[in-house]
């Protein structure tokens, strides 16, 4: 198999005296949809923060497509083709939906810090932003300030911003949290659609979503991965059952 999209080795993270991530080893293959599940407080979001460099790691190694990314800044990792969403909606509140998305595509189209290009003249940026906007179903809200969108719309926009740059490794942090059933279904369809052909890593609590979407699942408990396998195998994994259901099942 080729170089994995993400390779994590011996990753540790301490907050003061408490160890939150206690030695994680994980390979995410290219093109797979990978879900990370685990009980509350297991360190799932922290793991995302470490991969995307929102938090500095304590020790270990992280490789993105074979390249060491430890010590890089978030924007540098982003430029290497990794994009993430947030559990708590993290969008540009005063900008319109369209502007939110256009901001997300500018760097990847190579406009960098240009103050000599005219935004209105950037056809490629406009088209890409509009395409994503239609993808996430916000075409009608084009000029609405993001801050006054409904919650589900903001979540969709969050995903939109994450995928807009065309990154091939996508990290989604609880994309369906707080959504109603119908909204969740729409969100799953959306995620499936927009991550076609990309590497997706997601943290999710809704098992329906996880088992519906993921090719492989990793279970994170108390800062360690206790199992990584296909959904069906994870369902029958004793250690996982123990972690989720307590000790009602027999070990042996």
């Amino acid at each position, binding site marked *: 198999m080729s170089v994995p999209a993400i390779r994590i080795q011996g990753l540790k993270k301490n907050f003061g005296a408490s160890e939150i991530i206690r030695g994680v080893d994980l390979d995410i293959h290219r093109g797979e949809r990978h879900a990370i599940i685990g009980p509350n407080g297991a360190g799932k979001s922290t793991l995302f923060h470490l991969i995307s460099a929102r938090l500095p790691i304590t020790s270990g190694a992280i490789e993105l497509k074979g390249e060491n990314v430890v010590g890089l800044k978030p*924007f540098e990792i*982003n430029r290497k083709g990794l994009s993430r969403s947030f559990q708590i909606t*993290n*969008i540009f509140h005063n900008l319109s939906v369209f502007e939110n998305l256009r901001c997300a595509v500018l760097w990847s189209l190579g*406009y960098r810090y240009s*103050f000599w*290009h005219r935004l209105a003249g950037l056809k490629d940026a406009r088209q890409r932003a509009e395409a994503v906007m239609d993808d996430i179903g916000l075409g009608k809200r084009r000029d609405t300030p993001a801050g006054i969108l409904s919650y589900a719309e903001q979540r969709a926009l969050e995903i939109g911003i994450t995928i807009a*740059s065309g990154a091939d490794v996508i990290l989604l942090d609880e994309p369906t949290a707080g959504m109603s059933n119908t909204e969740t279904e729409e969100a799953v369809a959306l995620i499936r659609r927009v991550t076609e052909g990309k590497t997706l890593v997601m943290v999710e609590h809704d098992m329906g979503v996880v088992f519906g979407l993921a090719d492989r699942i990793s279970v994170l408990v108390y800062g360690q991965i206790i199992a990584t396998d296909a959904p069906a195998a994870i369902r029958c994994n004793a250690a996982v059952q123990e972690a989720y259901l307590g000790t009602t099942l027999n070990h042996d």
Partner: protein
Amino acid sequence: MNAAILSRGRLAVWCSCLALAFALPLVLKSGFVISLLCQIGIMAVFSLSYNMLLGQTGLLSFGHAVYYGLGAFATIHLLNAIGKGGGPFTTALLPFAGGLAGLAAGLLLGYVTTRKAGTTFAMITLGIGEMVAACSLMFPGIFGGEGGVSGNRVVGKETFLGFSWGPQVEMYGLIVLWAFACTVAMFALTQTPLGRMANAVRDNPERAEFVGYDTERVRFLMVVLSGFFAGIAGGLSALSYEIVTAETLNAHTSGIVLLIAFVGGIGFFYGPIIGAILVTVMQIVIGGMTHAWLLYFGLFFLFMVLMAPGGIASLIAVQRALWQAGLLGRMLPHYAATTLPVLILLAGLIGLVELSYALLTGDGSEGPSKVMSMQLELKTPAPWLTALAVTGIGITLTRWIGGRMRHEWNATLSTLHGDRS
């Protein structure tokens, strides 16, 4: 030029503003008014450049005068250095040199200041501003000490297209041209990737990092560019006043530009221009009428912060939105009804303030003193009681009628937003 900047409506607005600016001196011929207009033009550029930081990038700076002042000094020194070798044409281009000086200062100081955003940035700029201001008095060779550096903008005998820049009216024309060019450039900047990403950094720096942008770099570039335009404004002031003193780069100037931008409205591109007009007129005209102008000014500012944090521009924008939604008619009677009590309240308050000032700074002589063109006996209770009574009536009426207006206002606003969403 392009369709975005020059959509038909916008083109009309821009052109009519330019035409109005050029037409003003034809109507208002007094030298004082021309000087006032020059000052407004300069402050408009300066405060627009400031708003590139505060309004567009979310950077609250207390040291923006540094760029303005350095631009001014660079211009005046260059003017003197060129001396007889120049002509009106080179003189007209000198503000650009001021801009380059502002840009250079931005490169140097921006590196230190933009490492942080938010409150820390505010404090650092304050400290750096103080440092530069203090240094300016230590190097009289560069900053001219107390007397400042003066120059003469009329170079040689020849003219450029008939202009020598000597008369203030010609200088005004030059300022209008520069101000217009800078305004167009700064507006155009808001329509570029950097300008848009500055908004993004203002709204959510973390997210901006996760779409690939180095927020520090965005802030740095905005500081540098804003320093450039502030430097041009400084250069214009150097040409207009023909003297530059250390005062141009001290904390007071930085404070004024902040006030201007905020009062005008930092959320709108044109807000600072409104602020520049309003504040300059207040400063010079009201300053000429009463010595209490600083107090009025401070109170007005506090009022704006508490009641209309979006500035004058946001008030205008709301009225426009109401008008477009056909709701303005509902509010107009209430505005009219509130005007009278507010005027009564203002009259009472101003009366009290003016009486106090007259008592404290007046000639102290027995007999009547002149307060607000009235002859009043300050030592007797009558004028004081009258002012107090008027204030009291004003407060009561304002609360009563204002309360009803607020009720209607909230109802109208919810209708407005209801329509929208």
